[in-house]
């Protein structure tokens, strides 16, 4: 059974995010005020084949733990559609 998984990987709270900070610094110059807490992460979409949703989720979580995220600095969340 084919599933489409979406994985969002963000830096953990409390870990400085240079990309976010740079965007935040750049926005006022472009005329955007009142913007704060900019955080930049990754969004990964992939198709997995699994017996059922349960198995698909486990597969993708495995991938996140071992590969798609770095637990030292990043947290992740997984959503599935079939």
């Amino acid at each position, binding site marked *: 059974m084919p599933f489409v998984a979406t994985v969002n990987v963000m830096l953990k709270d409390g870990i400085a995010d240079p*990309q976010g900070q*740079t*965007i935040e*610094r*750049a926005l006022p110059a*472009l005329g955007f005020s009142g913007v704060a807490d900019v955080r930049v992460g990754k969004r990964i979409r992939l198709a997995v084949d699994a017996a059922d949703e349960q198995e698909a989720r486990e597969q993708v979580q495995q991938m996140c733990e071992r590969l798609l995220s770095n637990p030292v600095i990043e947290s992740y969340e997984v959503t599935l559609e079939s």
Partner: protein
Amino acid sequence: MTITASLHRDLGLTDDEFEQICERLGRDPSYTELAMFSVMWSEHCSYKSSRIHLKKLPTEGAHILVGPGEGAGIIEVAPGVSVAWKAESHNHPSFVEPFNGAATGVGGIVRDILSMGARPIALMDPLRFGPLDDARTRYLVDGVVHGISSYGNSIGVPTVGGEAVFEDCYAENNLVNVACLGVIEHKLMHGRAEGPGNIAILIGSSTGRDGIGGASVLASAEFDETSDEKRPSVQVGDPFSEKLLIEACLELIRDDLIVGLQDLGAGGISCPTSEMTSKAGTGMRVNIDNVHRREPGMEPFEVMISESQERMLVVVEPRHVDAVLAVCTKWEIEANAIGEIVASDRVEIISEGAVVADVPAHALAEEGPVYTRPLARPSWIDELQASPSGDTAPASLESAFMAVLSSPNVASKRWIWEQYDHMIFLGTLLGPGGDAAVIRLPGTEVRVAITCDGPGRYCYLDPYEGARLAVAEAARNVACVGATPLAITNCLNFGNPEKEDVMWQFSETIRGMSDACLRLGTPVTGGNVSFYNETKGRAIYPTPVIGMLGSVPAEAQVRGLAFPTEDEAIVLVGTTDPADFGGSEYAKVVNGTVGGRPPHLDLDKEAALIAFLAHANGSITSSHDLSGGGLCIALTESAIAGGKGFTLDAAGDHTALFSESPSRAIVTCPKNLVGDVIAIAERAGTTALTIGTVGGAELDFGAFSVPLEAAMSAFEGALPNTLSSNIQ
């Protein structure tokens, strides 16, 4: 799909060219054939407007092993040691999408070098943008530099120098030129499909709809409001695949497994299949079902002209096919046999069992249209040359000096080159920040010098003089670091060739380049022409960028521009003409003028300076040529680089300090050697004069004095202060 009357026009072919195609084929072309002709006969691939002029360039020389016409020129820099040297432009793509446009520009020139069997070992990036006060321009600068950095660094080729020039005329048409130096590692290769029965293998990235019509649409049509619609043809670079492609191809050559290879650039698969066979007098039967693809449902014509990056075509004897595939597997890149060399003279394209194209290779590759475009000296050039050069004296010499020093064209380019790996290969003896880069070739003690120069303002005022000045400055720059100028590549950036004045600028440029190259003994080994750098009728300055290659004699010392020791004498070599202000940095920055005539160049005096710099090698401790900003800027650059101030003996006025007379350099030497140095200069046929002493923490120009610290922060701060904190 059927041919509608106007289809060829949509593909950028004229009615006349369409007629010629029908003639060559003896019938109407198929859609696929028409697409193939449209890319191969585009300005970008066929040089139809420039050919008759390029033929006039001097290309012969004892040390030139391969001249124009192949992937890159080949120059023997020492007995048995040969290098490839070539420049390319990626102007239009980089304006549409700066990061990927610049990145794929690097990828393209690197594959040109690779196609000769050379390992790419150094890059340079001559860049032109509009003024930095514009946000879009800052976005372009940041994107282009980041694109070059991410691609060049990742494939492990150092970017050791370049140019960064900011002028109004480039605001809507930035120039992204890239030059690459390679060294023949195992043996010189040629892009020839020899030997009927041999197999054509496509290696590298899979083929998608990237840059469909790129060559004919993106690179060969003037910009206008509709250029937004051209955006889907943006190509994305994959430096990782390029790195694997480099290693795999060099291993194939090392193990003698291939007969010939060529890169896939503009024109996609159409290009090597027709050019390699046309050169070898063979034909090729190609089954495009075997082309590994990224997207489903691609039409044959899309496969034939797709400009997907990081691909090469290699021709292999049947007995070596398995070995070739094994090497590609080891390097983890895809490879598929897509064709067979045949005894005919035709390129035959087969898709799903049907012949979708059957074209004489020569017609595609060599028989493109050749135009003798009308040209005429524009009337505005007389008014321009009659207008003031902008040499009037400043209110304050000191503020004029600070203004010129912190002008983005003069100021330090560190913000750019610190983003480039300029050290890998452990051969960068002189990196960015000097007159030329000096590279020690891997595994040898052979040292070559490279630099790029293209003074657009001079060329605008007088394309003939400007082109001579460009070659002279490039030669001077390599001579300053201790090298002998050997050969040039070039990148000729111009407006719309269908306009008489642009074509005149082009022909004058060729004439000037030829004269200078002949006199200085530096033949042209190849290059690139980029036309249609024009938006809404406004063309860029004619901008010939000269890439000069030199070699440092085995016994010679490599020399930097930094003042090395306190109390040494500063000697000015060459004569200053107080009238040389046309197109100068001073005229632009202080008087807001670009007019008059460019500085007067006497090629004999330039040759004399170059001879002096060679003969004085043992006596002088640093040397730096005078270019943009004149004497005061050259002195300041050497002071900042050496962390030492100076004191001039006499207070010069603005003509002495800012004139941009060519054929000059400042050198330093121990005071007791001044006599010898002056004698060497006079013997070489130029003049020399002691003008000051190295030392202290002040830049003491006599008429005024500036703390070294203050000059340094103005020089180093200009770019970062405007370009700081960009998004990547």
